[in-house]
């Protein structure tokens, strides 16, 4: 991995959003031009794909999938974008075929997947409805991977123990809301 690539990966891991926006600004036009030339998509579609690619880069870095990246970040981003376009095209043709051969059999795998997706969306909604500073604390800790000392200094708490206590309360409140909502869902 080149120094530049590893510096970018480390910055994303450390929770830097700025680097993602810099990457977007640097490569957006080149990607749009490339996508239009090679895949006959519109400008808006190409931009949308590139935004998805930057989000996917973020997710892959967080999941440790980019730790052994051999190519440059630009090549990686363009590769993700290409896959998104090809998958979308493939999905379009599969959807047409699936529509033509509607199968009414139950598929528990799909239902399980749907349930899980539904639950994650429910958590997302409940989390979004949380006030400050719970949202910030949980985001810094779980999404950006900060330790409790960093969370405390970012929020302005005296020390890590105060932040830890607050995080516990926020988490408890969110988990209680999830349990209540899930019960409501089941009763409905």
């Amino acid at each position, binding site marked *: 991995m080149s120094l530049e690539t590893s510096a970018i990966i480390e910055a994303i891991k450390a929770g830097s*959003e700025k680097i*993602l*926006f810099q990457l*977007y*600004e*640097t490569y*957006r*036009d*080149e990607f749009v*031009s490339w996508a*239009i*030339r090679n895949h006959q998509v519109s*400008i808006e579609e190409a*931009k949308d794909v590139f*935004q*998805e690619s*930057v*989000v996917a880069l*973020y*997710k892959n870095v*967080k999941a440790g999938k980019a730790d052994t990246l051999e190519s440059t970040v630009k090549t990686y981003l363009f590769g993700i974008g290409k896959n998104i376009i090809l998958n979308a095209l493939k999905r379009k043709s599969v959807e047409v075929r699936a529509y033509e051969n509607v199968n009414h059999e139950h598929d528990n795998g799909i239902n399980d997947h749907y349930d899980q997706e539904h*639950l*994650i*969306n*429910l*958590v*997302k*909604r*409940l*989390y*979004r*409805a949380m*006030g400050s500073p719970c949202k910030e604390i*949980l*985001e810094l*800790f*779980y*999404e950006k*991977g900060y330790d409790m000392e960093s969370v405390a200094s970012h929020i302005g708490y005296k020390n890590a123990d105060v932040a*830890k206590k607050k995080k*516990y309360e926020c*988490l408890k409140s*969110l*988990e209680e809301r*999830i*349990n209540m909502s899930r019960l409501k869902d089941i009763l409905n």
Partner: protein
Amino acid sequence: MEESELIDKFLRGELDTEQDENLTKQIQANNELKRKVALRKLVIEGINLAYTEKLKQDLIEFDKTLDGKNRVQFSWKTAAVFAFFITASSIAYFVTRPTDPYNFDIAEPGIPNSMGAVNDIEFINAMNEFKAGDFVTSGQVFKTLLKTDHANDTLLYFSGLCDLRNREVKPAIEKFQQINVQSAFSIKATYRLAIAYWADGDTKKAIELLEKIKSDKNNPFSEQAEKALQAIN
């Protein structure tokens, strides 16, 4: 170590091998602990989804700011391709399509949760969805809440606005029409009603309303109405 903290360390991969193996065994043997770990995973996935959706939204907003900026230098080839594409698509656009009324939509930041006319967690959640740009989910909730509080101007306005943004013009018109002049949303709703008429193809009503807005120099959307009128004409 406290259990909640231990679960976090387990999921973040911060336990040493021995601790990790011990906890894995405990999770397998203890259903309550297994449930707690699953719930924590769900929380993390939900936060991740909220964050990545926000990131996508921020990139969309950032993208809008880029075109006005002096940015990366391109080779003449890239510039030529872009110039050709932009010229060709602009010509095609103007030849084939009339001006889009939705280009004259105005920003709506939503209202602070404490200002909600309906003191209800469902309304607060829907307002948060609205602020995050999810007009389908928020619109459904506003619509449901309207069924039991059908004259509430806050719900009429935000439900109508979600309809409009979801390109469901007729219900949007019906809702904006019900907002009376005393409402705090009246001025914005009137402008949006004009845009909705336009989007519905009723340019006569749209022009009438926009003329009214334009001629009222105290109306904050007077200039915007003038621009819309120019586009219609």
